[in-house]
């Protein structure tokens, strides 16, 4: 929708040598897929795309450049920009090195949901709009096809940007919040759901590696001294890993859902970090990644913090 402007701006920045690299999206090798791309020469900016399948969180690709001095322009959706804000706040980069090309986002569409509702699909049959699409003559709203984390997104607009391409939009009203749905189930049912889902986990760590905020040099899951979990994907070890990861993301998760979209087993792995963020929002009035001046919720305290659970 705004591809031409994006390509133009990226080309300008590279030609003026305002940045050394541009990280964005390009079309994938499979239909209905987009992949990250690194552009370092102005001619290659023609390969940049921006559509409903731009799924990975590009802030993750900033992490290898922490030690270098290169200046990087990043195409960032609302949630991706929040991740950049947290990385800046955690002093991983000086602000001047990152040039944020902010993209207000109407959500990522799940290929699986498309196939479920529409059967066998071919790319040629579709024409895409911001909030709807045409397929074989029929118009559909994208609401029911969005990825679960996108359906509940509260911050489609980047909170911080150097360039803003696209129109700011309001968060969606009508869509189903899958976290609420799970929370409304009975406790035992929820436990059954999680044990079922997490038994399928093969501990490939795609969720952790796709997350822009999981950047520990050595993850606790792979630590030998101390050794927390074994290398086998048993249910107890999987629970340990996901609970531990959610706690390490407490107050830092930007609810982008990249972890869930990365999972090869299609497990609803985002639910645990999302629940932690909900707990923090409801009790400490904090949402991660919205401003550079915010203070990490677990690094501050108030005298009247909830404490009835302590004897």
């Amino acid at each position, binding site marked *: 929708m705004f591809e031409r402007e994006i390509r133009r701006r990226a080309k300008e920045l590279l030609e003026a040598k305002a940045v050394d690299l541009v990280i964005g999206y390009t079309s994938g090798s499979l239909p209905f897929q987009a992949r990250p791309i690194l552009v370092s020469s102005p001619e290659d900016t023609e390969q940049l795309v921006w559509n409903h399948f731009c799924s990975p969180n590009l802030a993750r690709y900033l992490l290898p450049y922490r030690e270098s001095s290169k200046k990087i322009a990043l195409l960032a959706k609302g949630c991706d920009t929040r991740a950049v804000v947290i990385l800046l706040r955690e002093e991983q980069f000086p602000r001047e090195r990152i040039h944020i090309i902010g993209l207000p986002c109407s959500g990522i569409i799940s290929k699986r949901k498309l196939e479920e509702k529409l059967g066998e699909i071919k790319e040629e049959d579709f024409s895409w709009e911001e909030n709807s699409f045409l397929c074989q003559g029929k118009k559909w709203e994208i609401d029911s096809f969005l990825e679960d984390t996108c359906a509940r997104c509260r911050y489609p607009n980047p909170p911080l940007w150097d360039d803003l391409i696209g129109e700011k939009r309001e968060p969606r009203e009508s869509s189903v919040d899958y976290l609420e749905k799970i929370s409304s189930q009975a406790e035992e049912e929820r436990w059954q759901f999680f044990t079922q889902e997490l038994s399928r986990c093969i501990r490939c760590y795609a969720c952790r590696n796709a997350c822009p905020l999981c950047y520990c040099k050595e993850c606790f899951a792979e630590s030998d001294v101390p050794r927390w979990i074994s290398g086998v994907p048993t249910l107890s070890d999987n629970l340990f890993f996901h609970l531990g990861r959610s706690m390490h993301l407490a107050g830092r998760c930007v609810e982008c859902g990249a972890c869930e979209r990365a999972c*090869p087993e299609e497990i609803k792995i985002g639910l645990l970090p999302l629940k932690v963020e909900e707990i923090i929002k409801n009790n400490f009035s904090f949402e991660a990644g919205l401003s550079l001046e915010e203070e990490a919720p677990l690094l501050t305290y108030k005298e009247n913090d909830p404490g009835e659970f302590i004897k």
Partner: protein
Amino acid sequence: MGEGLIAKDKWWEWIEDKKDRIFLTERAKKRYGEWFPPEVKMVKNGKEVLLPPGEEMYRYLWTGEEWKVEEREFSYEPSFLFLLPCEARAIIEVTDKVFLHPPVDKNYWLRRKSLSLGILACLQPEPTCFCSLVGGGPFWRDEEALFLVPRKEDIYIEGRGEPFSFSEEGGEKIKQEIQTLQKEVEKGLPSPLPSYFPQELYHHFEDEEWNALSWRCINCGACTFLCPTCYCFDLSIEGRLKGFQLRSWDSCMFPKFTLHASFHNPRPTGKERVRQRVMHKFSYFPEREGNFACVGCGVCVEKCPVNWDIREALERMVEKIDRLRT
């Protein structure tokens, strides 16, 4: 034992009898699920049966005076595994060569010898499939395994060791039909990699193409764990004075895979690890064993979170190699 057609009802008789000892891979079930009773056990691929993600090797105990070690003995019921040709090739041409050539891995051998394979011909390759690129094919078969081509009302079976009551023996007419079917399915599949590829790829170890190729990879372990041929494992001890040794899946994509005790890591970044994966499958293994350690099933392409496509990597390297050869 011969080959021929078996009518549907005879097939069901034969299969009902064994349904408790049958494994069916997920991809085979997707295509041929209607030919099998619902009670058969579904597995992701052959690796799950032969090389489980976690396995006890031995147990030990400090008695107060000495270490007692008890090796774990397992025995397995003879079973059947029905799978697609690419998955079967992964077992017969890759993991068997690794674990059954001396020294023989005892656990793998015990499981393997009690497992009979039934190769279901692949009649609908997916857009991510590329078995023909790496020396396989949708009708690949092995003489030690059964070979089945399910059709509308009957199944064509080639095999030995199993008593089948063929409704029609495998005469010339049937063979022709199967061959025609094979040619049709193989239309449009990529042609094999050149025979000089393994050796030439090795000479491109320092090529700067690897930088561009490996940039996108996030170094998770999804491709290695889902790959039917990846067999790397880690050994660890669980427990202190009493415990067991554990063999678990490991991935060359993990940062600690080649971490030495001196803390030197010869593959410190993603680039070395991605390069290693491609070189191992397409250069080191073929030079030693004669075939690629990749069967072209395409699961890694389908599941990679960032759409890292091994076919593209191969294409680029072939292009480079061909350019330098001319």
